[in-house]
């Protein structure tokens, strides 16, 4: 059990600055997910914690020890790799026991711990098999088992589910969550899948180009994205962005672009005052759009033309054209819309997000 601190962490390769000034405090027993597109530095950060990459600058602390110069084996961590990294020539039992053997644990203790882990993961039947006789999901369980027999201070997961098929991934995701609740060990988990990040993490760290974009609880990232990147990355289908002008008319502020003119909701108006006459980016999540009814004030509704209809059963995604832009609306499955239909959509004024065009930060 331990906290992990990263202070001004940097990683530079010859030409690439992969991780930039990362500061992160992971609390004891916390499950933190690093998420971002490929090349954002999330795996590199994890590997620096593991000791598999040298640290170019900054400091990593695990528990109360600075581990910068400690070899991986002395950091008291266990890692689950994307491709499982099981030793192909060893049985499942030996794979799980290897770390304990290397640390000279007595045999009965090893057997006890392996049995225990095998029970938790439901792989008792597989202990005598070799990895290549296992399915992807079973291999993943063994890889997790190899990590938990060690009772490490911190678990590191490097995209552990991305080699599994979609159905198994959902199942393993639930199992990992349950496992973490049971083991109560600090965990750092790297993924490029925002759904995994949202469902697993106590807190989620969104990274891009080596920088941390935002750290927060899943719903906080969803409802209060710090910048345009986080807003677009978290949530599926992604948030719609439209460039609009801020204009003043009839004593109120309006967001204005071809085909769309909505009144700035009161709480935002104060913050937008400085942007009068400038262009900003308006962000609306597909689920914050709905078919306009007579109850919706005209100030928050607009016309749209249907371009694509994607019925998903529980909901319908409509790709609609508004002025020059195409946006996605997530509407009730009872809506009957056809190609080229003209609709009237309305938005939840209190849920729109606005971003500075230059800094891309949320306003």
């Amino acid at each position, binding site marked *: 059990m331990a906290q992990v601190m990263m202070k001004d962490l940097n990683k530079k390769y010859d030409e690439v600055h992969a991780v930039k000034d990362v500061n992160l405090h992971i609390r004891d027993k916390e499950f933190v997910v690093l998420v971002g597109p490929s090349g954002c530095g999330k795996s590199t950060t994890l590997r620096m914690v593991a000791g*598999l990459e040298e640290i170019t600058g900054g400091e990593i602390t695990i528990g109360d020890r600075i581990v910068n110069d400690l070899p*991986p*084996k002395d950091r008291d961590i266990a890692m689950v790799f994307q491709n499982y990294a099981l*030793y192909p*020539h060893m049985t499942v039992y030996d794979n799980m026991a290897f*770390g304990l053997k*290397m640390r000279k644990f007595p045999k009965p203790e090893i057997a006890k711990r392996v049995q225990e882990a095998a029970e938790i993961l439901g792989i008792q039947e597989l202990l005598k098999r070799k990895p290549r006789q296992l399915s992807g999901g079973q291999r993943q369980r063994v890889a997790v088992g190899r990590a938990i027999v060690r009772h490490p201070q911190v678990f590191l997961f490097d995209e552990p589910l991305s080699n599994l098929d979609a159905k198994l991934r959902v199942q393993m995701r639930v199992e990992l969550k349950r496992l973490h609740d049971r083991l109560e060990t600090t965990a750092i988990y790297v993924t490029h899948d925002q759904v995994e990040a949202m469902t697993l993490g106590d807190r989620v760290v969104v990274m891009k180009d080596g920088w941390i974009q935002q750290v927060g609880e899943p719903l906080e990232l969803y409802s209060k994205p710090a910048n345009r990147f986080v807003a677009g990355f978290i949530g599926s289908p992604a948030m719609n962005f439209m460039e609009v002008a801020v204009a003043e008319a009839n004593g109120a502020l309006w967001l204005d672009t071809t085909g769309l003119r909505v009144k700035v909701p009161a709480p935002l108006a104060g913050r937008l005052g400085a942007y009068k006459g400038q262009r900003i980016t308006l962000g609306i999540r597909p689920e914050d759009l709905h078919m306009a009814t007579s109850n919706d004030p005209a100030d928050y509704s607009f016309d749209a033309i249907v371009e694509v209809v994607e019925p998903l059963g529980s909901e319908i995604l409509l790709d609609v054209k508004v002025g020059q832009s195409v946006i996605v609306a997530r509407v009730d499955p009872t809506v009957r819309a056809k190609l080229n239909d003209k609709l009237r959509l309305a938005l939840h004024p209190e849920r729109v997000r606005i971003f500075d065009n230059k800094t891309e930060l949320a306003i």
Partner: protein
Amino acid sequence: MKNPIAGGAGSAARVEVALPHSGAVRRRAFERLLENERLLAFALLTPTVVLLGAFIAYPFVMGVWFSLSDISVGQPAHFVGLKNFVKAWNDSIFRTAFWNTTVYTFWATIFKLALGMWLAIILNRHFRGKRLVRASMLLPFIIPTVLSTFAWRWMFDPTFSVLNWTLYKMGVIVTKLPFLSNGDWALWCAIAVNTWRGMPFFAITLLAGLQTINTDLHEAASLDGANGWKRFWHVTWPLLKPVTVVVVVFSIIQTFSDFQLIYVLTGGGPANSTHLLATYAYQIGVATGLLGEGAAISLFMLPVLFLVVWAQLRYLRKLEGA
């Protein structure tokens, strides 16, 4: 109907036959022959079978026949049973040659494996100038053995040895070392040259094997608490075993039947003390002209090599089965 010749006969009635050129007809007939798998297999295998038959099977059968006869250069052959084998067995030079071959093969293979593995592991890391090192490492393997062995012979030369000169100038020795003039020394010199020459083959093959081992395994092992040596012993070595077995067997076969190196370096001397089976067989069979006896000596290699190959196949099958 694009293809009136190869097309089905059933539709022939409706076909307007536009006769193609006779060349095209022949080409199509030929293509059709190639579609016949049995014929194709025959065509592909024939050259190999002919070559193997003419240059391996025929000489081998003749060798066996010679070894059972009293043939010598210019004399017809008479069947003499196992006389040649018995004679060889009772010949002290033959016994020395057999022993030398065993020692030579054993130590040269061990050295080549150890050094080749070491080189392969070094080359599997990233460092500046790696390509240059990798390319230059192949040099001993590329230079014709006879040429490089000549160079070595000069370095070991009783009068002109650059090694003796260097050691003497450095004050390491006061008298010349008898590199090739002492039988024991000469055999070890031959082992050294063989190691130098054969190591690149080991290194390159093992390097290819190393590159198939996922680096994640090493990372996993280092997190599991294994240091460099333990990672090699528990991860690299077991995964490299199949490749290792194959190169070792290749090397044993080549080293056990080695000829050029000893022939150039010592010619079997001094006083027949460094003969290998191949060079002694050549000396008796070709230089002396006793073809039958020479054939018998060289055939002594057969059971040994057969055993080695058999053991290898068995071992590999076990590895695959496990």
